[in-house]
């Protein structure tokens, strides 16, 4: 990456970008732009967690199969660490995560179809069959607290309707906004104070006002 523009010291832009992705605003705090960093953190975390809460904590998850191609996660993951637990399911690391952080066992857990529930029951050497709800209860009793069913998510959609979509949009926008924040941490703002002062002086000289 080229030298930082103007007098703004971006320190290590790559590291700042990585920090900004992991924790929105952290890249700016690392660069000494503390107020901006704190405000970015409040805004992006605010949007992300408000959206998650509005969607009963069932709008951020990763499914990438014929059951559902969850494209929205591509945007949600922009919010960084807070969206990463959803990727644990793709890495088969959910049971380990649930053991380490029991209160967050089902945080962003992938909702399972009936077939997947049966397979899980088989893998855990438990009797399979019955409804999804029954299997989920049985799995919970046997310690698989992270199990969420697709039926459960469908019920939420039936109950709350468009609110679930609005909730998802909040989390999507939080992730997408953080992409701008990452770029700002890596390359600095489009207009620096010095540039703006110069522009204003030029405009004043030409007889124009502030746009």
């Amino acid at each position, binding site marked *: 990456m080229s030298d930082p523009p103007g007098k*703004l010291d971006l320190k290590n832009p790559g590291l700042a970008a990585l920090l900004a992705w992991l924790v929105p605003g952290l890249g700016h705090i690392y660069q000494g732009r503390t107020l*901006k960093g704190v*405000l*970015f953190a409040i*805004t*992006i975390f*605010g*949007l992300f967690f*408000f959206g998650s809460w509005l969607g009963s904590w069932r709008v951020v998850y990763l499914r990438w199969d014929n059951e559902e191609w969850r494209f929205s996660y591509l945007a949600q993951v922009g919010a960084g660490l807070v969206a990463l637990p959803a990727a644990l399911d793709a890495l088969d690391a959910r049971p380990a995560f649930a053991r380490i952080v029991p209160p967050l066992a089902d945080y962003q857990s992938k909702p399972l179809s009936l077939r997947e529930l049966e397979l899980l029951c088989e893998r855990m050497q438990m009797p399979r069959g019955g409804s999804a709800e029954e299997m989920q209860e049985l799995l919970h009793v046997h310690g698989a607290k992270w199990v969420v069913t697709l039926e459960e998510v469908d019920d939420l959609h039936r109950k*709350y*309707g*468009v*609110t679930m979509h*609005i909730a998802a*949009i*909040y989390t999507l*926008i939080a992730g997408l*906004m953080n992409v*701008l*924040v990452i*770029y*700002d941490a890596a390359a*600095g*703002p*489009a*207009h*620096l*104070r010095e540039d*703006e002062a110069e522009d204003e002086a030029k405009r004043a000289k030409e007889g124009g006002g502030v746009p």
Partner: protein
Amino acid sequence: MTPHTIYWHLAPLVLAVSFVYAATRHEDWTRIFWRTLFWIRYILGFLGSAFVALVLLEYFWEDWWKPALAAFAIWLAWKIYLRQTQPRNGPEAQTNGVAAPTDGKVTAKN
């Protein structure tokens, strides 16, 4: 959730988007504040226009040409108003819209 309460969810979204966008474009806080207000107004204006257009379309579904005609009339009136009130001191106004003569001078192109 009743349909009208959905719109209240727009407020924090518009505010957050406007602020983050403005803050990633500028470093000066006064500039960030004014640009945030600009984007709030811009986004709400755009969404409001789309809302009004859709409401009109629904209301005049059969006679769609009525709002279309009204919109054209408003646009025409606005153009005439602008023409009447525009200051006539620019080089284009002085030459009545015709480009100013170059006195035969040709500037070299890079």
